[in-house]
């Protein structure tokens, strides 16, 4: 091996290092570009009037009011349906399921469900909830569809968190004569709670941003009222953004950007809460 060869090899390694670093930082910069572009375009439309008005044909009068309330309704109901079921499923798989064929089938099934395109869930919701159960294009149908969509996310996150609870805690409780459910309720669940909460928040932020399934089940864009109950028609933040973005006029594009700022602010806030919970738990475990 000549010295020139070694020099060349090290030069290649250096170039490779540089390339990988550039590409990575380009990805980080991209987030900056995206955030800057959106805030720059939408900033001037963001005021109290925008948050409190209903949709309108006139961009200067249009606002997010019904979309905000729609999203709030949708997320509240979705969480009410999906969190108890998701956590229960995770507990069954980790604490009761064992390693039988059925458990493995459920496990593989959940992994695959997590990869099903969201629009397919929309079609499922359209046929089953909107038509078959006759819920119509209501908040209820929307949140049931959304629940099915985020269930795999909740189950996977909760399972990881339940699995991380040390076995010694369970054994100590069993040794004191506790039944399986008592062990789960009084020991496993409390220890796993922070992890489950983080997973739930991430699943919620997924549900807040999902658009395609809501379009499929027929959430409308022009809703000039706030939903009063689970059977009312509704619109949601991403639907309203999609509607504005798909119009040709510049003003509506800027409205879409303003809507995106609101949407991203909500999501970042939720992420911050999740990070905070994780941080608190790590501190507590030290």
């Amino acid at each position, binding site marked *: 091996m000549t010295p020139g060869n070694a020099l060349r090899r090290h030069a290649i390694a250096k170039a490779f290092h540089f390339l990988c670093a550039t590409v990575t930082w380009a990805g980080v910069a991209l*987030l900056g570009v995206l955030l800057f572009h959106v805030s720059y*375009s939408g900033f001037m439309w963001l005021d109290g009037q925008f948050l409190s008005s209903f949709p309108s044909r006139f961009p200067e009068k249009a606002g997010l009011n019904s979309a905000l309330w729609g999203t709030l309704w949708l997320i509240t109901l979705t969480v009410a349906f999906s969190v108890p079921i998701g956590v229960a499923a995770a507990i069954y798989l980790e604490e009761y399921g064992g390693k039988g064929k059925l458990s493995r089938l459920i496990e593989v099934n959940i992994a695959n469900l997590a990869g099903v395109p969201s629009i397919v869930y929309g079609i499922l919701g359209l046929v089953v909830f909107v038509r078959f159960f006759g819920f119509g294009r209501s908040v209820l149908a929307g949140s049931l569809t959304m629940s099915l969509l985020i269930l795999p996310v909740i189950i996977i996150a909760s399972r990881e968190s339940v699995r991380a609870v040390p076995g010694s805690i369970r054994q100590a409780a069993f040794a004191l004569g506790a039944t399986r459910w008592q062990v789960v309720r009084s020991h496993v669940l409390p220890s796993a709670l922070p992890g489950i909460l983080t997973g739930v928040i991430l699943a919620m932020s997924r549900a807040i941003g999902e658009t395609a399934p809501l379009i499929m089940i027929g959430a409308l864009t022009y809703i000039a009222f706030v939903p009063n109950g689970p059977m009312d028609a509704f619109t949601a933040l991403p639907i309203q953004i999609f509607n504005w973005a798909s119009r040709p006029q510049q003003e509506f594009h800027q409205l879409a950007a303003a809507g995106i700022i609101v949407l991203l602010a909500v999501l970042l806030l939720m992420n911050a809460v999740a990070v905070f919970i994780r941080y608190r738990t790590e501190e507590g475990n030290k």
Partner: protein
Amino acid sequence: MTNGSPENTASLLVGKVRFHWKEEVIRIALFLCAILSVATTLSIVVVLATEAFTFFENVSLGEFLLGGRWTPLLVPRSFGVLPLVCGTLLIVAGAALIALPVGLATAVYLGEYAPDRVRSIVKPVLEVLAGIPTVVYGYFALTFVTPLIRSIFPSTQIFNAASASIVVSIMVLPMVASLCDDSLRAVPLSLRQGAYALGATSFEVTTRVVVPASLSGVVASFVLALSRAIGETMAVTLAAGATPRMTINPLESIQTMTAYIVQVSLGDTPAGSVEYQTIFAVAALLFTITLMMNVIAHRVLRRFREVYE
């Protein structure tokens, strides 16, 4: 439930036999929650199969899968799905071209080169990128990427495959990076140290030892990302257009399978008509393709997972 709450330690010790039925009820309730996921999959399959079946009573499977013209909403009607598949593949190919190498390079940088401090900045940024809703990427494609492309290639159409491809690649990038990162980290340090001890450079260690050693994980992450790109809906609906067309020119307007489904459900096509049933046939095709890719990826992950002890 007559036996007091579990907090009551005394009743715990005395009444454990009579607790039994309650334990069983809880076990069954938990089991029902777990089995709901299987029921979801089954109902997806049943819904798509029955609705697509009514469609295929009117249009033959051969015409659907092999036909090269997709004009179900215009007369004369034609139900060949290939233009939609072609449009989807164009988007996915473009996204793969960018996201797969960049994602892998990011994972390599994070795993092999970056100090911990950099890692702790980049990882959360990637998580934020992964959490941005797809409709936001659609807006970004339409108002930022497309004007950028048009300033370089003025003949580019307003709706074009290229800008959609680019944002889809940004969307799947965090997924590729984090899955690749996981599998690169699973390669034991001793393999790297062995290679370095033989005088290999960092480039050689990465390309000849670390990546080959974690190849199954890397490939599985690629497949999962591609399947995600195939199912992507809002960005392609907003940015790629609504013109089903067999083309490989990314500067033209096209339509993907998902965008077509959205187009029909936003329009006023009467439910129950053959035109309307097309969305179920297209969705069935979409579901089949993505499911196959996911099953393959998970199988690769499980079966070919290199075990180092």
